């Protein structure tokens, strides 16, 4: 019954005896009673059904009570403490959530409590009870994952935000980063393209580096994960892609965003841009559960641009010729659109090329369960997403996730093993059709000839007069096959009470092959004789491993709790990429075979990154009132010169939970929680690429004939053995307040980050042999931000609950110093006192009523059509957001749950007004001549006051179109308010489920990017591009069943 050998080490202080006993005897089939100085531990009453039957008839236990405790959805809860109020009797629930208590009379009160759940009390009536516990509402006590450990929002000294699985799962997105958009203060994510597998830009508290990486550090289950892909093959359509695309969103338990120095300094030279920690799902104690989730959705482009129709387009063209006094019918004028193409045709190219509906399918099956000794979860997901482009394209992925955790019986050895494997097959057109969809002439030729062949609209001499976009659907495709493995293991051993030794190890491996063929059909007919078939084969491998031994010590010292963590980190990344361009194939059929190429041109690159560190953290928590947290790290990275390879980083964070002070306790009853926190520390940025400090010799081989049958070697840059990291000093001040038992929690953070020691090309006189050397430079960038987060429990009753969360971030980015800026290569790109990325533009003053040409102001404010690019670029425009945030609501009524999230961004962006490939309205250049309908407001005759210049066939001659493109009028408000996510689900009634022997099942609807309110003049205000597909609107329906 009780294992004599078992050793238990616990450390309780000022803890009620019931809790201690509950902890000690959890899962042991024992119950207890105690009096003043004796504790009696005895076998649980009535174990097993047979015994219960006999027990009921027995006079020994006249008032035996049986019961079961479940969570809100009916799953049994084990380890729940049940106490009989006013007595010294208690027990815990077993694995099935069941308990028995002897000697409990009707009318006595039971106190049912468990960590993470609201404590309930109930009066005993009858001989069996069923108790449902609700998850504790206070968000302050939910687990927050930090570097090398966990904490809670209540006790944290840092600036950390958490997004949980329930919010991630509600969003039909294929990249977990996209599930974070609008939800986290201080985190700004831009989806750069709506193409599946495309790239995203992630910035935590702004841009710190002028010339190097600004990506956060990604850590998945303790294993660092790449933030960027190394380039291979041709990946234009996905804009280089993003490694997080290969992590399955439904495998994620939580994502924690670490922002300030207190949370990130322990990551040393990798953490200047913050850290994003992804924790995957783990098994829970309880019965084996099978979870099946089927989801089917449809996506479309959110918005279009109003472009000229054929009538308007032709009128524009004719008027342009009239304005320029050119007779378009004359034989020396080439005007294919007017002379060769059918001028009665009209095609809505946006509808034809990007107007399709993409299918979204997601099937997820998970099995989980476990005993107190070991838990497991295994899940498999199949995901398929097609495109809005015409043609048969799809991104298909299958993934497998598992997690095992196990503890030895004496609880001293703990093992955790997890793995994620994904196979992705992404097939896309080689080129994004968005710019074609927007700019193709409305009377451009038909896609097919009457005989069904592709129409090249040949002119009389057999030359194609346009590029048929279907070549990208039928011939010129791109395929990317990626296998991605993320594995980690943690083994820990408790040496002595409070002293644990632990080691975690991780391995990631991503293998990609890409294939981009250009068969004969993709080549214009007149060029086929002289242009060979080509194909590009790409091969990429990115591997990293990490080992992190750690020692954790915990002890009560004085009236507080002291924690010490010591650790070391050894990491290595290997990456290589290989691109082979083949040309001269004899047939389209052999394009997949490199051996069939007449000539091949290889490209190759490989790099190794080694990283090594020692780290420590000391935390002292004095009565949950004063908390001090200090971290230190000594860090070495192979990216730095041998003279500067090691460096120290550190931080200090303090928190004062003033509501724990006695003087506040009673005076403010509505005030349930109040914390002031401050942190300061130093972090680094080593995202500068490998080997930058080395003097390297490259092969001069490519496209060059060997000299004396030898490929030469050449050096291309000066080595700098002093190269070191960019340094960011982070100050963070915050106040967290809770009201009405934490039903309203308000978090405010002010942060001031200063990044210096910037790695930039340092200008050298050319007598040194080079014009620059990569060197650390005392330029400083300041990122200040205000972050606000308010979470509220608006309504809470048994049937209805309504929670809200509102966040707002006000960032400011500023270059505060840059010695000798004027002499640097950045003289034209940076301005001291202005944000990074600020653009100098002309001030647009409209159209000259006399000539009908665009005018901008010169430096004296006088209108001119020929401004000086050196002196007249006087207006500064920044496209960084001025504020952004989101409003989230969760409403539950009985079995119905409604969640919606509204994202808002205030920013400026480049509009489409003059951004039409810099063609003047009226000009014709095959495939890019259509104009937005705003050009209808053009100048027509002297005296017209308007903002669009006269139609003309020649932009070069006018040049004013270039001035306008570089003026402030080319930028306009790109702010938007977006219903980012809406999710509605209905829990199926229990009586239905019982018939089918299902436990917990729901049907649901989810939507992403459903509604966008914006004044932006262009396709989508998020990616603000006409060359990349905008983020798509997705609507999906699904059913989730638990067996």
């Amino acid at each position, binding site marked *: 019954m009780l294992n004599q050998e078992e050793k238990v080490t616990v450390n309780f202080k000022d803890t009620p005896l019931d809790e201690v006993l509950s902890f000690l005897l959890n899962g042991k089939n024992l119950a207890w009673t105690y009096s003043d100085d004796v504790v009696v531990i005895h*076998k649980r009453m009535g174990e097993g059904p047979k015994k219960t039957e006999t027990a009921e008839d027995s006079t020994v236990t006249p008032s035996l009570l049986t019961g079961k405790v479940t969570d809100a959805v009916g799953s049994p809860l084990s380890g729940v403490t049940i106490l009989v109020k006013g007595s010294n009797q208690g027990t815990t629930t077993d694995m099935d959530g069941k308990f028995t208590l002897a000697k409990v009379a009707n009318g006595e009160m039971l106190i049912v409590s468990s960590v993470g759940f609201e404590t309930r009390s109930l009066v005993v009536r009858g001989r069996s009870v069923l108790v449902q516990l609700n998850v504790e509402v206070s968000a302050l006590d939910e687990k927050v994952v930090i570097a090398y450990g966990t904490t809670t929002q209540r006790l944290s000294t840092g600036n950390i935000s958490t997004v949980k699985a329930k919010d991630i799962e509600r969003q039909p997105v294929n990249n977990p980063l996209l599930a974070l958009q609008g939800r986290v203060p201080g985190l700004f994510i831009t989806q750069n393209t709506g193409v599946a597998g495309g790239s995203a830009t992630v910035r935590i508290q702004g841009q710190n580096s002028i010339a190097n990486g600004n990506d956060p550090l990604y850590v998945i289950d303790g294993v660092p994960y790449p933030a960027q892909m190394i380039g291979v093959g041709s990946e234009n359509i996905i804009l280089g892609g993003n490694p997080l695309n290969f992590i399955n969103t439904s495998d994620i338990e939580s994502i924690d965003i670490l922002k300030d120095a207190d949370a990130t300094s322990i990551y040393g030279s990798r953490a200047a841009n913050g850290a994003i920690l992804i924790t995957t799902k783990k098994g829970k104690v309880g019965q084996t559960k099978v979870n099946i989730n089927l989801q089917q959705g449809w996506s479309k482009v959110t918005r279009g641009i109003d472009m000229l129709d054929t009538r308007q387009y032709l009128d524009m063209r004719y008027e342009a010729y009239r304005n320029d006094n050119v007779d378009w019918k004359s034989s020396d004028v080439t005007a294919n659109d007017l002379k060769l193409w059918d001028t009665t045709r009209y095609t809505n190219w946006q509808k034809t090329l990007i107007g399709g509906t993409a299918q979204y399918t997601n099937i997820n099956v998970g099995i989980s369960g476990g005993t107190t000794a070991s838990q497991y979860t295994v899940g498999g997901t199949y995901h398929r997403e097609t495109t809005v482009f015409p043609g048969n394209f799809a991104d298909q992925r299958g993934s497998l996730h598992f997690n095992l955790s196990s503890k030895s019986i004496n609880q001293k050895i703990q093992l955790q093993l997890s793995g994620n494997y994904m196979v992705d097959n992404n097939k896309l057109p080689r080129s994004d059709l968005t710019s074609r969809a927007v700019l193709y002439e409305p009377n451009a030729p038909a896609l097919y000839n009457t005989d069904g062949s592709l129409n090249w609209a040949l002119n009389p001499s057999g030359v194609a007069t346009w590029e048929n976009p279907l070549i990208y659907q039928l011939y010129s495709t791109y395929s990317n096959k990626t296998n991605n493995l993320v594995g980690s293991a943690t083994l820990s051993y408790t040496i002595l009470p409070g002293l644990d030794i632990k080691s975690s190890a991780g391995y990631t491996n991503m293998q990609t092959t890409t294939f981009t063929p250009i068969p004969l059909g993709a080549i214009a007919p007149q060029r086929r004789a002289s242009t060979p078939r080509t194909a590009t084969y790409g091969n990429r491998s990115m591997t990293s491993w990490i080992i992190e031994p750690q020692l954790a010590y915990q002890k009560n010292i004085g009236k507080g709790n002291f924690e010490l963590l010591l650790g070391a980190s050894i990491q290595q990344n290997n990456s290589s990429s290989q691109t082979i361009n083949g040309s001269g194939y004899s047939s389209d059929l052999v394009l997949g075979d490199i051996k069939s190429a007449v000539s091949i041109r290889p490209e190759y690159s490989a790099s190794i990154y080694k990283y090594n*560190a020692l780290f420590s953290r000391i935390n002292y928590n004095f009565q949950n009132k004063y908390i001090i947290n200090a971290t230190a790290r000594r860090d070495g990275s192979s990216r730095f010169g041998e003279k500067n390879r090691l460096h120290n980083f550190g931080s200090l964070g303090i928190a004062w939970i003033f509501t724990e002070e006695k003087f506040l306790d009673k005076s403010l009853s509505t005030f349930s929680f109040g914390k002031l926190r401050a942190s300061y520390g130093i972090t680094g940025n080593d995202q500068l690429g490998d080997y930058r400090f*080395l003097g390297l010799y490259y092969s001069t081989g490519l496209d060059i004939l*060997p000299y004396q049958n030898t490929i030469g070697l050449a050096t291309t840059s000066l080595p700098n053995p002093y190269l070191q990291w960019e340094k960011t000093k982070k100050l963070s001040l915050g106040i967290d307040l809770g009201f009405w038992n934490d039903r309203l929690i308000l978090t405010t953070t002010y942060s001031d980050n200063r990044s210096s020691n910037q790695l930039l090309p340092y200008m050298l006189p*050319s*007598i040194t042999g080079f014009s620059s*050397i990569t060197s650390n430079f005392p330029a400083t960038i300041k990122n200040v931000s205000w972050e606000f987060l308010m979470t509220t429990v608006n309504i809470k009753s048994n049937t209805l609950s309504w929670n809200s969360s509102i966040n707002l971030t006000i960032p400011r980015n500023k270059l505060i110093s840059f010695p000798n800026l004027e002499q640097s290569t950045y003289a034209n790109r940076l301005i001291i006192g202005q944000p990074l990325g600020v653009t100098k533009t002309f001030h647009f003053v409209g159209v000259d009523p006399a000539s009908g040409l665009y005018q901008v102001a010169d430096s004296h404010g006088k209108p001119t059509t020929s401004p000086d690019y050196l002196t007249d670029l006087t207006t500064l425009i920044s496209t960084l957001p001025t504020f952004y945030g989101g409003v989230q609501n969760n409403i539950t009524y009985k079995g119905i749950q409604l969640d919606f999230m509204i994202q808002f961004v205030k920013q400026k962006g480049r509009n489409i007004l003059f951004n039409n490939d810099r063609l003047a309205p009226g000009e014709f250049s095959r495939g890019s001549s259509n104009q937005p309908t705003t050009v209808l407001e053009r100048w027509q005759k002297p005296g017209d006051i308007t903002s669009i210049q006269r139609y003309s066939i020649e932009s070069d001659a006018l040049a004013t179109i270039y001035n306008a493109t570089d003026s402030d009028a080319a930028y306009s408000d790109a702010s938007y308010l977006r219903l980012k996510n809406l999710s509605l689900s209905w829990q199926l009634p229990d009586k239905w489920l019982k018939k089918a022997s299902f436990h917990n099942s729901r049907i649901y609807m989810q939507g992403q990017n459903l509604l966008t309110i914006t004044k932006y003049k262009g396709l989508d205000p998020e990616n603000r591009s006409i060359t990349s597909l905008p983020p798509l609107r997705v609507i999906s329906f699904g059913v989730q069943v638990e067996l």
Partner: protein
Amino acid sequence: MNSTYYNSSISLKQNVFAGVHKKRTIPFRAILSITILLFLISILSCKKLVDISPPADQIADDNVYTTDGTAIAVLTGLYTDMSKPGIFAGIGSISLLTGLSADELTLYNGVTSPSYIGYYTNTLAISTAIGSDFWGPLYNYIYKCNAALAGLNASNSLTPLVKQQLMGEATFLRAFYNFYLVNLFGDIPLPTTTDYQANSQLARTPVSQVYQKIITDLKSAQGMLNNDYLDGNLQPYTGDQERVRPTSWAATALLARAYLYNGDYANAEAQATTLINHSSLYYLPSLSDAFLMNSTEAIWQLQPVLVGHNTEDGWTFILPSSGPSDGDNGNPVYLSTAQLNSFETDDQRKISWIDSVTVTGTTYYFPHKYKSATLFAPLTEYLMVLRLSEQYLIRAEARAQQGNVSGAESDLNAIRARAGLPNTTANDKASLLTACLRERRVELYTEWGHRWLDLKRTRNIDAIMNITTPLKSNGMQWKSYQQLFPLPLADIQQVPGLTQNPGY
């Protein structure tokens, strides 16, 4: 019997539960000290752990000079680079741009590039950075020589003969580059190491000292370079010789030129004589064979390296049937009337080395020393860097300067004979020197800036350019300071004590 009473040994005296098992004490100290030891090891090895080997596709500078193959490839890389379109070959070359600055070439009137117009009209200016084009690339080449010399010097794993030849090549090349720097820009900084901090403090070295350095380098290169042409592995050729790596003869040829430019006529004559006397290797072929690959006149040539091209000079100078043109791949120049008029009537070079195209009634004459400008034509021509006829002309001039009239005459006549011309009529020092200059003009035109450099060193530049410049630039006058090109503004601003050439 259902319940077992168990009297717990847990002490409740204090509110603290503590560890209860004392028998099997864990060797805590041992574990802790092991752990600390492990940490100490990782501290000590921290630096080692982050040492990386260079990437597989690149070689670190300290490894390049450890094996013969990679060390040779560094110098081969320099020749490869020199043979590509750049300051030594083709459209932006010294041959073309100084030919425009002097009186050799005419710029096609459709050319819009301010750079060509600047060189052509002798309106180089610091504000537009036109005229500084050669400065940065030449110093980049010098850096590579200095890096190679440092690396080779420090290496002790190379085959001694390979090391010696490569040191000779790097030393020779450094002299070659310095020769052009000093002739184009006057007094120049003279870096001899790769230390960028020291180099970025270098002020100008007077021309005479630069020449001293050039001569020292060339003499030392003469001693190190092999007398025979070597192949890509620095082995003697077993079959046909290629004259595409410098030999001691290349050092001798450049040394003769350096002595001549420096007024050391005795030495100039002596160096040229050793070359001319080495007739088993070097003799004058017919005009049409002079510029072929591995011609018997070639002392050093550069092998073409662009796929499908013969020489870049041929590619640029030879006009297609459509005539001259603007643009990056255009043919922006043709021979000037002054150059055409400088040939004597029966000069066969006018026929063999010049060709023309006529486009809508205008005939454009162009240099035709190199004859191949057809894509993927068989490789027949290499870019000539140093050739024998210059040595005859050097010796003729050196002998004339020393009063050796008959010697000078015979050298001139050797060149004239090949061109189908009668013996020279010059018969005293002054007329011979004039004859030498004229002969150089018709022999060496559009090659390596000879005309521009000759005009400068013989101090004839003002007289000639006072006439030529107004013709080229719509009447603008020649300004004497334009004979030196301007230094780039960025260098003037960054190097304390580095002054701009006067006039700019």
